[in-house]
């Protein structure tokens, strides 16, 4: 088994239903330096713990949404449409 993910629209599905969009990162300012832009493009926190990340429901409603998942256990703590999860990482249910 891999793990389950809850689509905000369709409910609980197996992870193979979804495409992974990577960790949510902070956009650089409007006119970034070349270095800032490269940092945004390539560098990642790759945290061992709760990670806010993008998912796309490829085999379902075709919506992009966000999840908070613990990368040490693959337990998904929260999901929401963009903007719904707030600015801070939640500590989970």
């Amino acid at each position, binding site marked *: *088994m*891999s793990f389950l993910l809850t689509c905000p629209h369709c409910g609980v599905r197996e*992870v*193979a239903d979804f*495409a*992974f969009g*990577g*960790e949510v990162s902070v956009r650089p300012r409007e006119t970034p330096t*070349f*270095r800032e832009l*490269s*940092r945004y*493009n*390539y*560098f*990642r*926190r*790759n*945290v*061992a713990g709760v*990670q806010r*990340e993008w998912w796309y429901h490829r085999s379902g409603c075709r919506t992009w949404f966000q999840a908070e998942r613990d*990368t*040490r*256990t*693959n337990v998904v703590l929260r999901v929401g449409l963009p903007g719904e999860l707030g600015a801070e990482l939640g500590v989970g249910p």
Partner: protein
Amino acid sequence: MREIFRSGRMWRRRGDLRDSYDVVIVGGGAHGLATAYYLGQLGVKKVAVLEKGYIGSGAAGRNTTILRSNYKTPEGARFYDASIHMYERLSQELEFNLLFSQCGHLTLAHTDRAMFVMANRAEVNRLHGIDSKLVDTAQVKRLCPPLNVSPDATYPVMGALYHPPGGIIRHDAVVWGYARGADRLGVEIHPYTEVTGFERSGSRITGVRTNRGTVRVGQVVNATAGWSSLLGEMAGVELPITTHILQACVTEPVKPLLDVVIVSSQMHVYISQSDRGEFVMGSEIEPWTTYRMQGTLNFLQDLTRHTLELFPQLEHARLLRSWAGLCDLSPDYSPILGRTEVENFHLSAGWGTYGFKAAPIVGRTLADLVHTGKTPELIAPFALERFYEDQLVSELAAAAVSH
């Protein structure tokens, strides 16, 4: 000769940590131990390898042991070729049989496009003196009689990139050989010693915090592969890495059938037969990041389906084990080697699914860097700085699935 019959420890039992070391290597996988060994050869004293689990508990003990050098970029081809040549002499040097068999490596092409890309790769390889050529379906069949090359397969075989010096090795033996060699040269090996943080003063690391106390340190090498980002964060060095699982499995031993390594990128599978008779099979990484080394059922289903297309004879073979290991993926499928913005914190990372073959050359070049303070020419193209400058060394075409 008599050695073989004498039982004894491969390396000394770990003692207490000393107060200070000239070099601390974090990670007791193939890269950390090789670096320690070559540092020992250079006469560097007071070197310690700190490993949070047992020696070889990471990807070093979980990989599918494919060694090859037919990479696409000139920088990559040159670098991996140097490593294969070191592997060819390594059993002699370490006085330990690593069971390296250069049985040949076939990357199958199932489309015109793949044939074109492989023809291009063969040219780049030959320019660097690497034995690599395009072969047609009939030649593939001659090199690998049991392979199903029938035109009514889902993805018929159109030809292959053939790399005669490629092959397989015994991964545990490489780990133990380097560990024993390093130990004999005076390196301290500390299993079950987890690095939990660094002490910094200005742009240097001065101390290494562990679950067994803090030690002062001259230089640090981060050789933690899948865990590189975490050590980087402790040191204050950001990395362009994501961590994913890669899975593999073996069948029960069957009679000798396959004496060449078969890779199919299109079918996401690579296959070899070990000296014990087990078919060793692997696939590609899972797309999502994780630090949890647990496999998936999808992997087994897809992999067995594709393997049976290529080798229908295995229909009744049973799977013995499957497992997962962590892979540190870099954006351009090339490694990240050498210096960082922290003066005395050096790096071997970005190994994705293909780092085992590089252990000897990584060990030698990083040892040189630590010893002389100068970046060896062979690894200069792989500096971390290239990502800030957007100067990638893209091995996407040659490394994404085929280890």
